[in-house]
């Protein structure tokens, strides 16, 4: 049973699909936020979790980390490290969203505001983030799968799988 599941989750094509999906999602999310960092700082502020003076540095840092992680995942370079960072961010997002749902706040998510889509936080967003978290965990545990730069380089080392 466990070895069967392991065989399914370690499938190179599945890992490639997860890598490209998460990579594209985070790269695009980061780039779209980088176009209007002020708006993203405002979105982070609304969560009312971090002290105000830290929020701008945190927000602009996060959006560039998203860009780097997305690009690394798409390339399949330092995949495990990028997946670890993405999972770390997702855990932080899940906690922040949960706290605000518990507070009864109805507010914009500020997560993936693609094409002008304004999402409101709720259980659906939490489930979605958990699905992303699981995909990140697969990449962290099983590596980049097929067609990664790391594989082409044929080298060992931390991320260059």
């Amino acid at each position: 049973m466990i070895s069967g599941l392991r065989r399914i989750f370690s499938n190179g094509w599945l890992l490639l699909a997860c890598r490209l999906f998460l990579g594209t999602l985070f790269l695009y999310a980061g780039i779209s936020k980088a176009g209007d960092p002020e708006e993203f700082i405002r979105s982070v502020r609304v969560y009312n979790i971090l002290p105000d003076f830290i929020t701008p540095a945190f927000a602009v840092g996060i959006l560039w980390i998203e860009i780097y992680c997305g690009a690394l995942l798409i390339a399949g370079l330092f995949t495990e490290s990028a997946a670890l960072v993405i999972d770390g961010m997702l855990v932080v997002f899940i906690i922040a969203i949960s706290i605000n749902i518990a507070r009864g706040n109805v507010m914009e998510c500020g997560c993936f505001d693609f094409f002008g889509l304004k999402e409101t936080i709720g259980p659906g967003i939490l489930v979605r983030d958990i699905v992303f978290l699981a995909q990140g965990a697969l990449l962290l545990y099983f590596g980049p799968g097929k067609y990664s730069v790391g594989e082409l380089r044929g080298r060992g080392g931390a991320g260059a799988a």
Partner: protein
Amino acid sequence: MTFNGKPIMRVGFFAALICIAGGLTGIGTNFGLVFNYEAIAAAKEDQARTEKTFMINLEQSKALFDSGKAIFVDARDPAECDAGHIKGAINLPWEEFGMKYPEVSKALPMDSLLVTYCAGADCEMSVNLGRKLRSIGYKDVRVFEGGWQLWVKAGYPVEKKK
């Protein structure tokens, strides 16, 4: 413990590098925004509030006219203004702003509420004049969108140059 056969310390090390690189790039490319966010956000909010009240309609203009608190400023050229203007309005033609402003500045105290207007909703002179007056220090400037055309049509008080 390993991730995909790689030591956790090495995976963690590169993860930390990604975070540091992202953080430094973010702060480096948005330095001014990060360290002056409060001031920038406050200025934007202020501007948005001002913009919201910048353009006013016929009813709002009439209310300000009746209150006697506003000074109406006609942005059209002198010939048009002389032929007929809102009662009590001061002529400050947008086209001749630099030359005419010194002449009328005494009648336009900095702390007064100004309402600019021109021929109608299509003319831009009242908006340009409004922005110009704000830029030189007038705190409260509004633009009457409908302008002279709408005012006359409504039958509100007008006068001609004697």
